[in-house]
């Protein structure tokens, strides 16, 4: 059976983005350093166009899901939900990077190209319905990430972050692969549906159980949940700030998507045993992330630990497996997480005009008086991260906690509430610095229209979906895995 060319339509957005990335790479060799900003804007336009292309081939939405490439690649609403969020995160990252990279001595062409290619990797990931296509896309994403983390290669922190991320990432991918090989040995196939059928036939096969555990551990690493989280704070601290923001959102979204796909479509039907590991990891993650953040002085590190804490909350969504609540709650939460985390990082980017200056909590001192708008925006993001209404963070947490309760995990929801209370302490250290402490001298603060625009967009989303969550909720509910 020859390869059906019509399948290419399914990957038009990915193809387009790859082509643009390569084009930009070539363009970067001829354009002068001063005009590098153009590359960023083109990359941004490409991301927006890709977003449009996601929908163009499917004028009638009822034709979804479509599966192509010999059962490797699926276009369904679930993947579209994540693709939109991922593209948005990448676009925001580019906005954050404009001045950050422009004023750095490092070239922009490869940087934006790598961001686009990472994004391509993520897009392929969330559409993968075959373990090999998921795996290779994951590696595409991860490899670009290693390079981006070490992009400021003359900063020791940046290279250190890259080295740590690389060693642990490769290590975790080894563990993940070992798990996949065991799953293959038990299932004799690598498609998710095939695995599901094989699991249903012999749910207690030791190869399967061990395979599932190893795969879970490999994916836990990607979403930075305990005890596989240790890399995250170091990498966020060392990576260039826009990249840290990107890492905190984009790859995590993709990792949650494939976690959901692999465990719901692949491992779920046969054996729901995995929920106990997820619950254990969720509990541990919430505690480690929130407690670890308490002592941090570096804002990026603090946000890193906070994102670990959030990974713990989000994992609760998987516990709703088998009920109607878990997955939509997770998706709503991830959308809210993306909005507020990117927003908070955006303000850190604004505060940093030079290298790694402006990263400590004290650098926020007196911000409320010197730039009340920025302080108010940060306040909203922090409130949202804490989960205080009427912000989108509350909506997400509310759905997650109720879904955990409906799935019977009362103690976990309780722990979540307790840890949210703990999280207030470190988020409000920033609020306190902004509002109650007088800053010394001039703030290192640079208004930057691109960053401001991105932050305002996040702010609007945070408040709007906090007050009117229904569009987000119904979107998430319409985009479930079938």
């Amino acid at each position, binding site marked *: 059976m020859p390869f059906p060319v019509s399948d290419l339509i399914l990957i038009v957005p990915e193809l387009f983005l790859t082509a643009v990335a390569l084009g930009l790479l070539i363009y970067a060799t001829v354009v002068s350093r001063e005009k590098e900003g153009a590359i960023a804007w083109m990359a941004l336009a490409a991301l927006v166009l890709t977003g449009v292309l996601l929908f163009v081939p499917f004028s009638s939405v009822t034709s979804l899901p479509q599966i192509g490439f010999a059962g490797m690649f699926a276009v369904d609403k679930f993947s579209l939900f994540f693709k939109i969020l991922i593209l948005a995160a990448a676009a925001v990252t580019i906005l954050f990077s404009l001045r950050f990279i422009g004023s750095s001595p490092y070239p922009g062409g490869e940087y934006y190209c790598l961001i686009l290619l990472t994004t391509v990797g993520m897009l392929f990931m969330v559409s993968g319905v075959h*373990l*090999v296509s998921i*795996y*290779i896309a994951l*590696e595409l994403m991860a*490899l670009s990430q*290693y*390079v981006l983390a*070490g992009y400021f*290669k*003359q900063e*020791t*922190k940046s*290279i*250190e*972050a*890259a*080295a*740590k991320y*690389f*060693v642990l990432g*490769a*290590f975790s*991918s*080894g*563990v993940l*692969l*070992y798990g*996949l*090989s*065991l799953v*293959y*040995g038990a299932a*004799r*196939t*690598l498609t998710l549906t095939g695995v599901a059928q094989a699991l249903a036939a012999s749910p207690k096969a030791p190869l399967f159980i061990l395979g599932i555990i190893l795969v879970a551990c490999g994916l836990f690493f990607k979403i930075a949940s305990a005890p596989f989280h240790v890399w995250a*704070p*170091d990498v966020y*601290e*060392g990576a260039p700030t826009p990249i840290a923001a990107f890492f905190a959102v984009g790859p995590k979204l993709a990792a949650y998507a494939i976690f959901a796909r692999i465990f719901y479509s692949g491992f779920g039907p046969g054996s729901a045993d995995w929920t106990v590991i997820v619950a254990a990891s969720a509990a541990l993650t919430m505690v480690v992330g929130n407690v670890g953040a308490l*002592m*941090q002085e570096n804002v990026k*590190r603090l946000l890193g630990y906070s994102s670990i804490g959030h990974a713990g909350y989000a994992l609760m969504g998987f516990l709703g497996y088998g009920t109607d609540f878990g997955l939509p709650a997770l998706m709503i939460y991830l959308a809210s997480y993306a909005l507020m985390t990117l927003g908070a990082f955006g303000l850190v980017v604004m505060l940093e005009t030079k290298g790694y200056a402006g990263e400590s909590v004290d650098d926020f001192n007196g911000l409320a008086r010197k730039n009340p708008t920025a302080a108010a925006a940060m306040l909203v993001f922090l409130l949202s991260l804490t989960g205080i209404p009427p912000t989108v963070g509350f909506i997400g947490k509310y759905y997650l906690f109720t879904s955990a309760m409906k799935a019977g995990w009362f103690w976990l929801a309780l722990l979540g509430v307790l840890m949210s209370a703990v999280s207030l302490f470190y988020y409000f250290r920033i609020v306190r610095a902004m509002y109650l402490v007088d800053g010394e001298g001039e703030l290192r603060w640079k208004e930057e229209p691109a960053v401001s625009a991105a932050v305002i967009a996040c702010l609007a989303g945070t408040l709007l979906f906090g007050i009117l969550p229904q569009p987000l909720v119904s979107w998430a509910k319409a985009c479930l895995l079938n």
Partner: protein
Amino acid sequence: MITLTHYVGLSFLLFSIGVTGVLIRRNLLTVLMSIELMLNAVNLNLIAFSRQLGDLNGHLFAIFIITVAAGEAAIGLAIIVSLYRLKGSVNLDDAAEMKG
């Protein structure tokens, strides 16, 4: 008679040696080599299962893993070179500035 068990057992031993290498070595180069050992163990597993099950998917997966191993080696070595230029060392203990 050599059975699947032998191959899987060997693969497992190889994987464990790789893991141990990552855990104990200070030199980033050797750590990278240990990771290659882990990937080889995976390939061994896949090939053995393929043989046992009479299914070609394992072979194909293994090709991709070899590709990934090559790509990772390239990036890993580039990181090692950068680290060496900055610190004059490829020792992981020297790349522990960020912590806590």
